[in-house]
């Protein structure tokens, strides 16, 4: 039996951020991860750092986290690119919704601006004609999430954190037992995304499948991360399947094309019907992509909590058990803030933002 201040289960970007911050606070940390670092949802993600204004708690956590990302602007393995986000309005109704969005963003301090149609086409000449305008959020960025997860784990290990390439088999009450029988005692923080219910069935997580397509390098074709303003309808709706225009310029010049959302599919198989639907949506906004080759298509699963907000905090009715999971599509954006929110509470410090909306108590009490 080995004893630690904190055993972090899962080394996706959320678990990696937790181990990094805990070790920086002087805790003796162990990490438990049977697979590659950031090898599941973290590796499948787009890596778009974005604040969505639809839910106040989600916005607060995203904005807090976006500020923390500034630490990694110059980290080579983060591939940080401050391309900004450009939300595209398809019609007058969507265009008219922009001032209210700007007000919600401004209330928490997010810098954003409305752009009319003329400015829109100056910013992104490849967009299809007939769009009404958009909203530009200039400080948002894209990163390479698995590279960041690896860096955070390495930094925790450099501070003395232990690494167990094992599966966490069972919670013991005083810690966790690994697949090879090793017992680790201490506070346990579970950050296993879609796998959360394996250890904590009282905190439901559903996998929401997504497809991504990446092209060859076409530098200069697209400059911002581009999304349709109707994206939130897809992201926050509960339809069995939906697609939305969501295109990202990688720093290499490659174009990363999303997005799809799908419940009910449990396998990682690529659905060409879903890819066709997603690309048809993309070509409505960027017809010039039609001649390009796709190099690769992949899928991933977003870990969705019961109410769309992550579970962050102490798990009720368990001694010394904490959770950071269920971030759906915002796990990369909010990993750094999530880690601080949980670890600060564990240490008895006052968290930087109100932790109550994310308290697992709302579900597992």
């Amino acid at each position, binding site marked *: 039996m080995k004893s630690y201040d904190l055993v972090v289960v899962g080394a996706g970007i959320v678990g990696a951020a937790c181990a990094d911050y805990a070790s920086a606070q002087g805790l003796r940390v162990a990490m438990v991860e049977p697979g590659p670092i950031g090898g599941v949802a973290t590796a499948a993600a787009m890596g778009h750092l974005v604040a969505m204004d639809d839910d106040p708690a989600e916005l607060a956590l995203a904005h807090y986290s976006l500020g923390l990302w500034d630490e990694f602007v110059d980290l080579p393995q983060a591939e940080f690119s401050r391309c900004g986000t450009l939300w595209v309005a398809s019609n007058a109704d969507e265009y008219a919704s922009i001032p209210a969005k700007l007000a919600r963003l401004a209330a928490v301090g997010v810098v954003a601006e409305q752009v009319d149609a003329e400015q829109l086409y100056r910013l992104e000449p490849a967009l299809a004609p007939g769009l009404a305008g958009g909203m530009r959020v200039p400080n948002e960025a894209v990163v390479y999430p698995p590279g960041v997860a690896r860096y955070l784990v390495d930094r925790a290990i450099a501070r003395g954190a232990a690494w167990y390439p094992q599966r966490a088999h069972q919670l013991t009450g005083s810690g966790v037992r690994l697949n090879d029988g090793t017992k680790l005692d201490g506070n346990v923080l579970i950050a296993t995304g879609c796998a959360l219910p394996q250890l904590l069935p009282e905190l439901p997580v559903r996998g929401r499948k997504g497809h991504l397509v990446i*092209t*060859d*390098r076409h530098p200069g074709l697209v400059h911002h991360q581009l999304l349709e303003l109707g994206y939130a309808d897809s992201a926050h709706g509960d339809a069995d399947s939906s697609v939305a225009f969501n295109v990202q310029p990688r720093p290499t010049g490659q174009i990363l094309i999303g997005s799809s959302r799908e419940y009910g599919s449990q396998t990682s198989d690529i659905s060409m019907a879903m890819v066709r639907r997603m690309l048809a949506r993309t070509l409505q906004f960027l017809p010039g992509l039609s001649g*390009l080759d796709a190099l690769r298509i992949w899928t991933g699963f977003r870990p969705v909590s019961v109410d769309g907000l992550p579970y962050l905090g102490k798990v009720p009715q368990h001694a010394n058990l904490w959770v950071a999971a269920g971030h759906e599509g915002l796990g990369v954006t909010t990993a750094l803030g999530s880690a601080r929110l949980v670890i600060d509470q564990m240490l008895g410090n006052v968290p930087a933002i109100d932790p109550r909306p994310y308290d697992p108590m709302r579900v597992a009490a």
Partner: protein
Amino acid sequence: MKPALIRLQINHRTVEVVAGSSVAAAIAAAQSSAVFRRSITGQPRAAFCGMGACFECRVRIDGTGQQRACMVPVREGMQVICDE
């Protein structure tokens, strides 16, 4: 009967090749040691497999980059940019 000839532009120079040729053949005919593209580290690359598998011969054709020259037949007036 003489085969039909197609005129296209390779790096803004007019080249005349037999109809049905691939763009890769036209580039090689225009200059035997032509650089089709460069790798990320700047190494010169040219058509290798000639059958669409190796992707070494990618060029810009009529404004669209990353096209495999070996897989595209020449067309009259085509604009091809190599090693941009």
